[in-house]
């Protein structure tokens, strides 16, 4: 009798506990990279704290260590993060290893439709397997590789005249990769206002993902494909096609001819520094930096312009960046974490997110008639998001990425072998990875 009473009381307590989950104030920790948008998110999340009563904490890790630190956290089943804004390529691992909570039922119950988000971001940040309606994240931050240029230098009459004489066209944002190289070469080693400047700051970093995020912007546009569109994981002749090799040769040529001395290990922050300090005319970087460039006292406002990654002979694409927000399956505060996602998906919150410097992926925000003119870089962001392509999002993405970092850096920066050899070896590495995965 005593036992029955105890069980009934326990059940009652559990039921009442579940029923009041929404009302309980939780401490939520959101994990993301340490960069400008993260500061905007702290600001934005104050509204959530005020409306929900939950307290938000943040764990931000600098980009070069972000994947290492956070994937270790997930792989060890750590409970540090309740919400994870993980990189787009982690989605396969997050889903298959059980790190992320599947959100389909939650989206359905709360009336959150993936059709309301930019399709490329849904595919890139939320779906696993790709192309199937299985959602593991809500698109949180749209991002893409694009270019920044010194508009004030481009508009100088003497430079305009010299460039026109040299190339027979105006010194203007390039439409093709070949034009981009011409412009970069034009500025390389030039004296401007008594200082030697250089052509372009491009991604060359070795340790994490830098050079891969850069070189793909050339590879895609020359005809590189990750696999046979009709036969998954069939890579020979696609990854290492002659067109792909030409793309890799182009990137090396750009590095050799038109980058600042000593830029052999540069990624986002080094490119920003080079651009803001007036060392380079062009800068390759993710779109997240544009609000910071626009507000910069030295190069901001009218002094800078923005353009999408130029087209190549094989197509017009740009490397996708950005992330989705997921609920970590090891969290004890999943209900409150889901509450955050529900709040974050609201159109008015997404609008404010854009105003604070976060790139919203909600169509209601980006398709608003005033969006394209709301910031000097808004139209470029829209144009760039229309041409995105992403790296592998397989569970073994880290192995695939590290192989590409290795092979590409050896060729582009160290000058070892030929482009064709580098890509042939990359295929060998990737075949080995997929064999280990049991997919080949």
């Amino acid at each position, binding site marked *: 009798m005593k036992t029955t009473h105890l069980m009934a009381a326990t059940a009652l307590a559990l039921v009442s506990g579940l029923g009041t989950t929404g009302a309980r104030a939780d401490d939520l920790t959101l994990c993301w990279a340490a960069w400008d948008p993260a500061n905007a998110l702290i600001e934005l999340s104050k509204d959530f704290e005020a409306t929900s009563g939950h307290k938000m904490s943040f764990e931000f890790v600098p980009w070069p260590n972000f*994947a*290492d630190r956070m*994937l*270790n956290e997930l*792989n060890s089943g750590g409970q540090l993060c309740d919400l994870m804004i993980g990189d787009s390529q982690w989605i396969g*691992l997050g889903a298959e*290893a*059980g790190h992320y909570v599947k959100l389909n039922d939650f989206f359905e119950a709360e009336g959150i439709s993936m059709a309301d988000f930019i399709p490329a971001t849904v595919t890139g940040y939320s779906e696993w397997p790709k192309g199937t309606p299985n959602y593991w994240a809500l698109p949180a931050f749209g991002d893409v590789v694009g270019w920044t240029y010194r508009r004030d230098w481009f508009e100088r009459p003497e430079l305009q005249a010299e460039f026109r004489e040299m190339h027979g066209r105006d010194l203007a944002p390039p439409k093709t990769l070949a034009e981009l190289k011409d412009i970069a070469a034009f500025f390389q080693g030039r004296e401007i206002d008594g200082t030697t400047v250089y052509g372009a700051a491009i991604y060359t*970093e*070795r*340790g994490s993902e830098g050079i891969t995020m850069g070189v793909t912007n050339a590879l895609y546009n020359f005809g590189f494909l990750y696999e046979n569109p009709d036969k998954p994981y069939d890579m020979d002749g696609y990854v290492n096609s002659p067109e792909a090799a030409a793309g890799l040769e182009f990137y090396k040529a750009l590095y050799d001819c038109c980058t*600042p*001395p*000593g*830029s*052999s*290990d540069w990624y986002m922050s080094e490119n920003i520094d080079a651009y803001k300090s007036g*060392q380079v005319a062009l800068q390759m970087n993710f779109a997240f930096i544009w609000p910071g460039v626009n507000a910069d006292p030295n190069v901001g406002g009218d002094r800078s312009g923005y353009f999408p990654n130029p087209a190549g002979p094989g197509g017009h694409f740009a490397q996708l960046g950005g992330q989705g927000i997921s609920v970590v399956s090891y969290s004890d505060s999943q209900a409150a974490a889901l509450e955050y996602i529900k709040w974050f998906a609201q159109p008015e919150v997404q609008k404010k997110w854009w105003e604070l410097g976060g790139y919203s992926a909600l169509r209601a925000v980006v398709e608003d008639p005033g969006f394209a003119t709301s910031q000097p870089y808004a139209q470029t962001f829209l144009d760039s998001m229309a041409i995105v392509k992403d790296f592998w999002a397989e*569970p073994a993405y*880290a*192995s695939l990425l*590290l192989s590409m970092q*290795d092979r590409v*850096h*050896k*060729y582009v*920066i*160290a*000058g*070892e072998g030929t482009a064709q050899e580098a890509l042939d070896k990359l295929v060998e590495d990737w075949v080995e990875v997929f064999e*280990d995965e049991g997919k080949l």
Partner: protein
Amino acid sequence: MGETTIERAAKATPPKLARRIRGLSDRAIAWIFVAPTIFLLLAVNIFPLIWTIRLSFTNFRANRPNAEVKWIGLRNYERILTDSDIWLTMQATAHFLFWTIVLQVLLGFALAWFINQKFRGSNFWTTVIVLPMMLSPAVVGNFWTFLYQPQIGLFNYSVAFLTGADPTSFSMIGDTGLAPWAIVIVDTWMWTPFVMLICLAGLRSIPDSIYEAAECDRASKWRQFWTITVPMVLPFLMLAVLFRGIENFKMFDLVVQLTGGGPGNITTLTSIDLKREAFEKWRTGYSSAYAIILFVTVFGLASIYVKALNRVKER
């Protein structure tokens, strides 16, 4: 006659405990004291080693706890030993190890000999010289990347000043020919003071009377150096080589901060490569085999070296 300490301790021991201990042999009591240490050693060193050996024969991946773990025999070892890229990292490690040790021993000994001359201000200079090794390797790596910057780096400007070359014409960490030397230079800058301190201890341990006897025998300074100084400092020097060898074999932070293992993988040392395999690619089985191969190599080399060291000491 008063009580001895032992008698007082015996009286203070609670009778229950005393009864229990009284029944134990000396050997058993010794085991009781040693057992916690043995247990800790087994738990922290031996068990992980055995576990690593076991994992090295499997395809286990630590980031896939639910995946099936297959026994694949010697496949991991075969892959590693036939992988040309791994031999390149071994080569890079050997180059780094050899040149850092040679330079640090030569410079460290020279500095120690110089400081040992006991001139005015020698203590001040000792402090100045040992400053680099007090810094964190990550900090050292970071600021040397600035020193090596072709456009603003002090190193490039110094070389340009001395040779007349254009400072932007070479990149210490971006050039495949220079990058291996760039990491050697930084490690030598940072750790030569350590070798110097050990050599200094060796030099100061030589009694003046030996030199005085040599003077009486009219031995030249050169002869004194080769027949007294070098042999008596040699055990210290060999110890310094052992310490630096072990440290540099596992070098990681400084090089990662400086070059990230690049350009290409020209400065990817085995420890960097192993870390990438184990904690970035998460090939746990493969990296266990890699670790075992390195362990056997280091253990073998260290054993030979320690034997030689003991022989020198016995002379």
